[in-house]
């Protein structure tokens, strides 16, 4: 019998606290003592912090309470939902040779995964498995970058997480093939998942990680995920997140990246479906000469609500960051973008660029966009730009006058709008897939 959040007349916080107490000592022991200690700290912080209230500035446009209210099963004990290789097949990237790790309802499923051969010392496995097999590595990093002290969703995840994925690339090692983490939701009832991801690229290491989230069932789900990533000195880490779990999925993703000097990190967030998606992305370039690139593409339709809050915290001098988020918002969908760039006092010679462009495709579509530059150093070059527009009629006419139908012209322009984000997808097979997806999404109706 799965543990389910009680339907009681109480605060949403109390329901989680009750569930925690009930499971403490059994399923929430964790696979490792450090994790267990963290859980205890985290649940206390969770209780003290509480969920964001309606008027909380950071959640002003995103009513997260709405999706917290449901009576989700918590999935604290392993179950065996019937998922086959055939179910997974459509979620793989065609022509992509990758280390494939499959998570079913947030749990590592070894039978469905095909991780293949890895360079010496590299590890790609489930998070719980990593905590058992490589406790030193996990303990050195887990909870170091994601702040469970001050962030209620990270605290909640830390208290409840059961599994997730772990990637470790040792010093001067290159993962030639990307790691593809395929997350599949297969639920018979409303379900809450709290997967944990830890990605470590040590000094001079290089890795590409692709995460795709899909569902094969149709219940309400709420995924409160935490990604911690660490890029050592001169490491290169590329991360792709493709969120497409269907119209009944809600996602709260806290993705926190730490960078040592001379490291280069690229993050790419694609949101294609979801009732409510909130991404908190925070990069901390903490050594000189880092590069951080943040890209995002949101395709909103039907009532979707997608909120990207990003922070680049320039804690060290001589770094470069660039950010480009694009929103294509249709129907009565809503997109929110808040891009904060913080340049601390001693972080001189920072170049930080941010741009955020939105196309509203319907009168009921909304975008709330807010750049926040907070600059305490004096020798910096920062810029931001935000544009919001509608489809250019003259451009449509130009294309029609060359023989393209209205629908073809529209599709071409919408894909073109997304083009500079797609162009930054460095994995060719993934770019082709995303390109096809975006084209099909806007393509002429047959």
């Amino acid at each position: 019998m799965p543990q389910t959040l009680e339907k009681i007349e109480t605060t949403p916080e109390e329901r989680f606290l009750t569930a925690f107490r009930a499971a403490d000592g059994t399923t929430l022991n964790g696979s490792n003592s450090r994790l267990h200690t963290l859980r205890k700290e985290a649940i206390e912080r969770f209780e003290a912090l509480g969920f964001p209230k309606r008027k909380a500035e950071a959640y002003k446009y995103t009513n997260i309470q709405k999706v917290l209210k449901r009576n989700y099963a918590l999935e604290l004990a392993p179950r065996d939902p019937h998922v086959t290789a055939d179910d997974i097949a459509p979620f793989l990237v065609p022509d992509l040779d990758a280390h494939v790790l499959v998570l079913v309802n947030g749990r590592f499923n070894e039978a469905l995964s095909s991780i293949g051969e890895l360079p010496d010392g590299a590890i790609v496995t489930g998070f719980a498995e990593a905590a058992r097999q490589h406790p030193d590595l996990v303990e050195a990093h887990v909870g170091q970058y994601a702040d469970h002290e001050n962030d209620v969703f990270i605290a909640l995840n830390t208290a409840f997480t059961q599994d997730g994925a772990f990637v470790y690339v040792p010093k001067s090692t290159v993962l030639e093939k990307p790691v593809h983490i395929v997350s599949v939701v297969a639920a018979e009832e409303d379900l809450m998942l709290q997967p944990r991801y830890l990605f470590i690229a040590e000094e001079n290491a290089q890795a590409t990680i692709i995460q795709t989230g899909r569902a094969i069932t149709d219940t309400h789900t709420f995924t409160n995920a935490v990604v911690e990533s660490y890029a050592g000195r001169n490491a290169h880490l590329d991360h792709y997140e493709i969120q497409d779990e269907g119209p009944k999925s809600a996602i709260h993703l806290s993705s926190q990246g730490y960078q040592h000097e001379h490291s280069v990190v690229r993050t790419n967030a694609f949101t294609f479906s979801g009732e409510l998606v909130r991404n908190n992305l925070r990069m901390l370039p903490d050594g000189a000469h880092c590069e951080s690139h943040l890209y995002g593409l949101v395709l909103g339709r039907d009532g979707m609500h997608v909120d990207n809050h990003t922070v680049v915290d320039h804690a060290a001098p001589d770094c470069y960051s660039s950010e480009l988020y694009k929103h294509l918002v249709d129907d009565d969908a809503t997109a929110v973008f808040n891009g904060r760039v913080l340049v601390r006092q001693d972080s001189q010679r920072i170049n930080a660029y941010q741009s955020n462009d939105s196309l509203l495709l319907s009168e009921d579509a909304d975008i709330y966009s807010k750049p926040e530059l907070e600059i305490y150093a004096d020798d910096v070059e920062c810029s931001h730009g935000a544009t919001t527009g509608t489809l250019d009629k003259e451009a449509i006419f130009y294309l029609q006058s060359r023989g393209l139908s209205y629908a073809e012209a529209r599709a071409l322009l919408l894909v073109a709008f997304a083009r500079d984000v797609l162009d930054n997808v460095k994995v060719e097979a993934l770019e082709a897939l995303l390109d096809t997806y975006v084209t099909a999404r806007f393509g002429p109706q047959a």
Partner: protein
Amino acid sequence: MALLEVKNLHASVEDTNILKGVDLTIDGGQVHAIMGPNGSGKSTLASVLAGREEYEVSEGSVHYLGEDLLELEPDERALEGIFLAFQYPVELPGVSMMNFLKQAINSKREHQGQEEIKAADFMKLMRERAELVSLDPKLMRRSVNEGFSGGEKKRNEIFQLAMLEPKLAILDETDSGLDIDALRVVADGVNKLRAEDRGFLIITHYQRLLDYIVPDVVHVMVDGKIVKTGGKDLAIELEEKGYDWIRGEAVPA
């Protein structure tokens, strides 16, 4: 049958009458020029012929190869063989020239019941037609018109014309902004594209272009009407005497 037959065409935009009774007949193989002062309605006529949606036709008719042109969507007109070289070509960031041309060519081929063009044939055609207007083939790898110079944009229009091989080509002030060398290149390109079954409607403010593309018929448009029609000498006369001369003739004081 005439290629294009415009009769008593009245058109307005945002409730302002701009065309006030235009009559014009173009036969296949002919080059017609329309000259006239700024604001006289030349681009409006081009827009109405190409099907720009904000223009409202309140009176008159347009027949193209005997069919009612005004019934057709802009893309249907293009597929039937009408081509407009824009006065202000549109920049399309993110739409590659290559992709754009391929879609345009294949739309036309599909309409004509032909299969998609083969990659090699397409490349060959593209190179050949780009050369016609000395368009740098490197531009094919860029986004449509993005970062093109003024001259490159105009040559790109004629290049597209050459790719799509229309039956009726309308050139709206393709000469404006071109220096004399670029003008010669464009005019040469157009001259090479003159054909028995192709008509041209060349809109220009200046006579100079018509030194190079010698028209069969010259019309003068003033205040939404064609007020004078003649041979190629009319253009020269107009250049000498200025538009006031025509205005004086058309609207006696």
